[in-house]
């Protein structure tokens, strides 16, 4: 498995784990109809900090194990795979933008709007790296 494929796995798994927990907690609070904004802003800040630490630590660990791969520039196949991932992520971001516009029109509160936008960013990141993994595994 190449360094960049490992990196894609790291991004997908850490995003799903950390932000999955955050959004599940938020969804549960929304379902119960009692959302403490301050609590969730704090939880989000801690989630972001945890994610950054995890991604940096795991990338450094993988780079130490395979320094040659980590230092090599992307080759033509890796560039193509990165572009395919970015293209898929664009559609997720576009859908998020449409959802955000609709929420502004119907007058959704800014806390939820911010969370929808953040969810779109996370989903785009997961899709981008997930599509890359798919192409690394199945071919491009």
């Amino acid at each position, binding site marked *: *498995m*190449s360094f960049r*494929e490992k990196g894609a796995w790291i991004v997908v798994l850490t995003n799903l784990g950390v932000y999955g927990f955050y959004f599940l907690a938020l969804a549960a609070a929304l379902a119960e109809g009692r959302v403490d904004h301050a609590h969730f802003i704090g939880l989000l800040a801690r989630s972001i900090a945890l994610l950054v630490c995890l991604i940096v630590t795991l990338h450094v660990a993988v780079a130490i194990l395979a320094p040659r*791969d980590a230092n*090599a520039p992307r*080759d*033509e*196949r*890796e560039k193509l795979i990165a572009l395919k991932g970015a293209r898929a992520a664009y559609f997720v971001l576009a859908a998020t933008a449409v959802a955000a516009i609709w929420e502004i029109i119907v007058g959704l509160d800014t806390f939820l709007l911010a969370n929808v936008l953040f969810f779109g960013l996370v989903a785009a990141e997961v899709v981008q790296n997930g599509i890359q993994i798919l192409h*690394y595994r*199945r*071919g*491009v």
Partner: protein
Amino acid sequence: MPTVIENNIRRLRFDAGEMTQQQLADRIGVTRQTVNAIEQGKYSPSLEAAFRIAAVFGVPLESVFHYRP
């Protein structure tokens, strides 16, 4: 997603004294995983990379790659 382009890179590497995928990758400027993907038919290289592979083995392009529609 297998490609319709087949290749003889594995045999050519064998004929070149069991050249490793890493050695070939270093000579054509790609990663070992990309050489492996090309060999497995999971990636069709650019024309430039294809010519570089043929040049490494000192054979014409059509001795390395074949199109199978």
